[in-house]
């Protein structure tokens, strides 16, 4: 089993969600994060002082899924999240040893 962690632009969440849905992935966990990378933050002015906001709001999507689905899921995310502008984000794939569904105790691919 694998875990995909994707860091994307916030307004792309819906599109990514729908894209994953289409490749058959129905579960995921999402959180708000701040990103720091090549994309530079913008400047805000308060009371005459300019501030650079260098951490940009991003969305992190975590999906645990069967190995066979990984490739398609990654592709789906990439297609949906892409705007071709700096800051589009990253996709990381990690290995997961076990997955358990709390409600039923099912494990492995059945659990996700």
């Amino acid at each position, binding site marked *: 089993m694998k875990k995909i962690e994707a860091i994307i*632009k*916030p*307004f792309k969440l819906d599109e990514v969600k729908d894209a994953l849905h289409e490749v058959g992935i129905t579960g995921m966990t999402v959180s708000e994060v701040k990103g720091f990378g090549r*994309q530079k933050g*913008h400047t805000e002015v308060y009371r005459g002082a300019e501030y650079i906001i260098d951490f940009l*709001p991003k969305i992190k999507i975590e999906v645990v899924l069967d190995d066979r689905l990984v490739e398609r899921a990654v592709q789906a995310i990439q297609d949906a999240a892409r705007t071709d502008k700096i800051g589009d984000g990253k996709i990381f794939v990690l290995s997961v040893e076990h997955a358990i569904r709390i409600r039923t105790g099912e494990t492995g691919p059945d659990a996700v």
Partner: protein
Amino acid sequence: MLLPSPKWLDTGSNAWQMAAATFVGLQSVPGLVVLYGGIVKRKWAINSAFMAMYAFAAVMVVWVLWAYNMSFGEQLFPFWGKPHPAISAAFMLQQATIPAAASGMPPLGFPMATMMFFQFVFAAITVIILAGSLIGRMSFKAWIIFVPLWMTFVYTVGCFSIWGGGWLAQLGTLDFSGGYVIHLAAGTSGFVAAAVIGPRIRQDRDHFPPNSLLMALVGAGILWLGWNGFNGGDPYFANADASAAILNTNLCTCVALLVWTIMDSMAYGKPSVVGAINGMIAGLVGITPAAGYVNGWGAIIIGVCAGIIPWFVMNKVQTTALFQKVDDTLSVLSTHGVAGLMGGLLTGILANPDMIEYIGTEKDAPGVSGTGWLYGSFHQFMLQVYAAAFIIVFNVVATFVILKGISIFVSLRMDEATLRVGDDAVHGETAYNFGDGEEIPAIAE
């Protein structure tokens, strides 16, 4: 030629009375609505705010249809006025008067509608204060039923007895703006109701951090300055005593806030803003029965006491195992019940006969003011004790009976599952919506 109003109408006093009533209204909406909304745990923000808002609306209907006249109308019993609606054109526009108490004041300079609205905002805030004890577990349905019943059978009694010209008024009880009628009643009834309804669930008692102290401060600030209408409106004239009442109110409150903050710092090492809010409320409540009867020194003394006694009850008495059996969510017993009682008794001690509310023009009618024990009238102090005892006993009994009655028909508490969830289960709403789907703010690219 057209005239704006009849001769008895004094535009200055009517202007003040309408403005004062508006300030008092603001104390509830949005004042207590958002003070409650902000000071409770996040999961109860909406429910707490809504309890307050509902109460404001429900009291109005009861008030104009029967309760106003039970509180301020013609005497039926020495503790109750005759119920009847008060919203005909003739009634609303006629010169205001409180039949059973009219002899104690000059002819009023505003119409009945002003009096009814002014007294409405007092009635409404009383039951909203009471709600503070019940937050975090009372069934909304039971609250819907409780408010009109409590208003009809409990509030009106204290109100008529003390303000409407009833038996306590006849005896000479002093309660300038509601230390007893409002705060002692709310504190007592709230505590009893908290006992009857039972406590919040364990995890809510263990963790109940204010979700937004800034929001609580919005409410607290409006509550404070709104009190200018609360105490400044009670002479029913824009006269000198109204002005003195406002000054005293703020003076006492400032002192209480400072003393409470010192108490906090000594006990817990740090001055806390929640403590400052509590001290502020204790001061506001403490001066309420005395506002136009004491001079500034009296206000300072009451302020010092209000910073110490309710602090002590909240921090040392309500935290004992015995008192912890009752889950008085916002410690209304301390900041309203005890502070109101304390203020009422101190009025019986500190009332200064030179604080003239109305000027007498004849020898045998020497003007209206209060004379406390300190100025020679021990009798006044005892009167304050009797009145307090009456309010306490009556509220305990009546509120208990009403709740037991309601519990026959609907459960007083939410069910366990709802209690775990909070607002979203009760109202289908949550106070903040920060991370739902795409409303996360995207950044300029």
